[in-house]
């Protein structure tokens, strides 16, 4: 049974912590060293988007005298440990030794790799706290963290953990410690304390557009804030994309580029004259660079699920096809990494940041609420017009075009999210997402079918494809075709729901309610 601990931060430096504790607890309790102090190397791990932190979990790789150990703890005091077995970080959870710890992490981190979030050395001393029967009633752990950087170390952390059945005495110990000068309840967990020495906080990265706009602020300043935030997200994902740590770095980078292009297109009038036109080609170049790798990522990520659906072939027959896709992806990734290291890319981001920094409040112009309403209404109207024009006979290009307009609308809602009523906004996004999912499946299926045709021809020309693989690829194409037809068949009802009178009325009310 786990017993929660009471944690203190001790900021005093004049006397050893053990002496302070002895004075605080004596003569009622004695403080007895339980073992020799030990120094540990601690590496906290999380996904780049802090999925473990958001789920209330902390994962550490702890190295002392023995082999490195992984410790996964939750806020309720639960702990799972596993041998690290020489894992090198970044690593996917799937690459950890099998067992309860890997099982707990695999689903939560899916697609993302675990990578070091912070590092510190830690000197840990443990003491038994004994009552007048010389019975250990609580354990005291003193943890001195030494952060890697030049900043001052966090205060010593004291944890008092009651032995089962002695909670009352442990609480008394806690009260005695709390009364000591320099002793305060520890507000920061060890990871948070180490990050704080670097001016960081856990959960600092998100790909969401977390800017707080006000309805009355100048629209140009609001748009500049959004664009700056997008540039920050893009920049944060460059290193991970180049190192190919996991596929989500590229995904988030690509989304930032798309959002930037949408903001330049829909908000061009709010920016200094000519600025959008000057930068649109650069961001188009960047977006196009990311397409081949991302398309192949989408294919490979869904590959196992698609292969499992084969009817007349075995998933193993697709191995040559999978190998071909993986090789293509490696080539595309190298090309992408080269471009992201290029002078053109570096200059694009540096110049763009300079432009955004120079944005000054205009003497006159619309406020954020007015501009947001205009941009969102226009994007919404475009979706309604393009969608209404689609019939069962419409060519795929029309649906692809509608998908782009839907993305523009979605991004516009995200740019100005802080101006709107959150529940109403969530509902509008959910309704739009239903339509987007259908269009996305339709287009992904089209891309994948085309890819199969091209790759089959390449493999055949190279003469390195067994007949079983070609048959399996045919089977796969047929299944993808079936999914494509299903998505196409669902389009009419999804669009009807999105464009219903009720949904439109809700949308109008949402946009009209900015800042209210």
């Amino acid at each position, binding site marked *: *049974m786990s017993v929660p601990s009471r944690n203190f931060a001790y900021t005093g430096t004049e006397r050893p912590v053990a002496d302070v504790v002895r004075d605080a607890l004596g003569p009622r309790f004695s403080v007895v060293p339980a073992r020799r102090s030990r120094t540990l190397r601690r590496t906290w791990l999380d996904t780049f988007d802090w999925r473990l932190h958001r789920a209330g979990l902390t994962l550490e790789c702890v190295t002392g005298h023995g082999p490195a150990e992984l410790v996964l703890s939750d806020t309720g005091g639960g702990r799972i440990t596993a041998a690290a077995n020489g894992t090198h970080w970044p690593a996917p959870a799937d690459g950890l030794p099998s067992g309860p710890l890997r099982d707990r992490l695999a689903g939560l981190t899916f697609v993302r790799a675990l990578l070091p979030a912070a590092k510190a050395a830690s000197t840990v001393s443990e003491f038994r706290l004994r009552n007048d029967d010389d019975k250990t009633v609580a354990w005291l752990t003193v943890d001195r963290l030494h952060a890697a950087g030049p900043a001052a170390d966090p205060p010593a952390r004291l944890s008092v953990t009651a*032995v*089962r059945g*002695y909670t009352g005495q442990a609480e008394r110990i806690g009260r005695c410690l709390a009364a000591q000068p320099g002793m305060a309840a520890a507000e920061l967990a060890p990871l948070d304390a180490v990050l704080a020495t670097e001016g960081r906080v856990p959960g600092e990265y998100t790909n969401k557009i977390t800017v707080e706009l006000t309805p009355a602020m100048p629209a140009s300043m609001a748009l500049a804030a959004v664009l700056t935030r997008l540039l920050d997200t893009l920049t944060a994902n460059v290193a991970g994309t180049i190192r190919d740590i996991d596929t989500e770095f590229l995904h988030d980078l690509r989304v930032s580029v798309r959002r930037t292009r949408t903001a330049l297109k829909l908000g061009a009038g709010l920016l200094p004259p000519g600025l959008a036109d000057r930068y649109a080609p650069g961001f188009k170049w960047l977006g196009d660079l990311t397409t081949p790798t991302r398309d192949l990522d989408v294919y490979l990520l869904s590959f196992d699920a698609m292969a499992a659906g084969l009817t007349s072939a075995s998933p193993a027959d697709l191995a040559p096809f999978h190998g071909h896709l993986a090789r293509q992806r490696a080539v595309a990734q190298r090309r992408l990494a080269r471009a992201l290291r290029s002078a053109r890319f570096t200059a694009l981001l540096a110049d763009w940041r300079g432009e955004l920094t120079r944005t000054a409040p205009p003497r006159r112009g619309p406020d954020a609420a007015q501009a947001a309403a205009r941009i969102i209404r226009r994007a919404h109207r475009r979706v309604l017009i393009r969608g209404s024009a689609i019939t069962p006979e419409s060519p795929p290009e029309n649906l692809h075009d509608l998908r782009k307009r839907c993305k523009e609308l979605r991004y516009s809602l995200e740019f100005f999210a802080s101006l709107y009523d959150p529940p109403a906004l969530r509902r509008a996004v959910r309704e739009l997402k239903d339509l987007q999912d259908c269009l996305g499946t339709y287009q992904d299926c089209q891309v994948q079918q085309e890819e199969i045709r091209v790759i089959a021809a390449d493999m055949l020309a190279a003469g390195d494809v067994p007949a079983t693989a070609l048959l399996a690829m045919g089977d796969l194409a047929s299944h993808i075709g079936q999914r494509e037809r299903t998505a196409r068949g669902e389009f009419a009802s999804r669009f009807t729901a999105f464009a219903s009178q009720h949904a439109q009325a809700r949308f109008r009310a949402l946009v009209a309610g900015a800042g209210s």
Partner: protein
Amino acid sequence: MRIVATYNIKGGVGKTAAAVNLSHLAARDGLRVLLADLDPQAAASYLFRVRPRVKGGGAALIRGSRDLDKAIKGTDFERLDLLPADFTFRNLDLILDATKRPAQRLARLLRPLRASYDLVFLDCPPGISLLSESVLYAADLVLAPIIPTTLSLRTLDQLTEFIAGMNGHRPAVLAFCSMIDRRKRLHKEIAERLPAERDDVAATAIPALSMVERMAVDRAPVTAFAPRSAGARAYASLWAEVRARVG
């Protein structure tokens, strides 16, 4: 969760010393262990420095008005908990007698602890009573210390006969020679002969050593304060045999 009862009809044969040292060794081996001190003399509680007091006494535990779980105390050793004795445990027979199916009562009370512990030791008072019947019904293995004398051997036969006559669940029995006085030829002879003659007698014999008696002074298992002593080595050897039987 497996349950081992240290039990003998006779008193003063080394039941508590065995329960305390084996539970410590089991916890040191990584098992989650509970030692239940059912003896109102509270020797096991004393050795672990836990005050022999249970809120509501034995009646509250047996009747179920107080959860067993809430009466458990942590010892000074990782993974080893103790259900302390209480002076009211002297009346456990009477309390059990007032319940339905008294023989099965202890097994039922221990059932909710299955998820929390791998191994439970029941340190029982001597005698044949309703409590011993309940203990035997709950146990997977009865670990019976015997002093190698003719009279003590009779009590082992009495125990095995009693178990053979039980309805339904019957625990396995493992006796071991305890408190061997190396100066006595009879002790040595019986301690050597018995394991060869009987499957239910462990090969390990626990000698009578002053270091084992020191447990009452140090108030800790000999396996903790003198892990390399002859006494601790003997208990380690006995634990290996017990572990092989309980799996």
